[in-house]
């Protein structure tokens, strides 16, 4: 059955809004983290096995591609965490006024930037 559908939220049918952008970013970050869980399991198995597998895993993580993936996953992790707290606040019934939604949205972006920056400062200086 061909039912009428509302236009897709991006990119040309609606005016740009930070609310919809943060919403779709939450999903994208969640999907990225789910894919990243493959590396999480791989790393745990490598630690348990030791030997060559750990050396190969360590080499992959320390490679430019590995570091780039970890950097992107750290952004996804802190964003999904911060915005997840925002969602839980909504679930609890707080922060539904439009100015509050915008304020919490910018707060989430700031928290993501600060946490990611602190994490990689620590990695580079440790």
């Amino acid at each position: 059955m061909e039912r009428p559908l509302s236009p897709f939220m991006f990119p040309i049918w609606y005016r740009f809004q930070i609310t919809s952008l943060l919403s779709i970013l939450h999903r994208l970050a969640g999907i990225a983290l789910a894919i990243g869980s493959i590396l999480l399991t791989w790393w745990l198995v490598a630690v348990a096995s030791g030997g060559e597998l750990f050396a190969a895993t360590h080499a992959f993580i320390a490679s430019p591609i590995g570091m780039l993936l970890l950097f992107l996953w750290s952004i996804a992790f802190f964003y999904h965490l911060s915005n997840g707290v925002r969602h839980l606040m909504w679930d609890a019934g707080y922060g539904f006024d439009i100015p509050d939604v915008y304020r919490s949205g910018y707060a989430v972006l700031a928290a993501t930037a600060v946490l990611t920056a602190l994490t990689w400062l620590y990695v580079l200086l440790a």
Partner: protein
Amino acid sequence: MANAGPLSNTTALRDGSALRRVEHLGSAREGLGEWRLQRLTALALIPLGLYFAGSILWLVKSDQVTAAAWLASPLPALLVILFVLAGFAHALVGLRSVLVDYVHTRARLLAASLLVRAAAILLAGASILAVLKLFLGR
């Protein structure tokens, strides 16, 4: 508004039995369980995720022996297993909600859901086995 008759009372969701009515007569089926699981695992993942991320940072320059010794001790082993369980359950609900939105035929939706579920169970199982192997010291 003053005379809300019996008919409107059976459909309104303003009394304490609202949840039961939604489950029994309304649109809520197994979706409510998923919704709850997503929120409960989200709550659990705030401390567990921060603990795991912090531990990885602490281990960032260390070798396999240090990491293995960390995972073999009771508290880290327990918390990492809980992190893995909550994380994969949370990811499973989230990925399923994405599939439900974008996969439009029943057969493909079922296939994709089963595939994602199988992957999550395999990855979670392998992770827990890895931690248990170190914890049990074999």
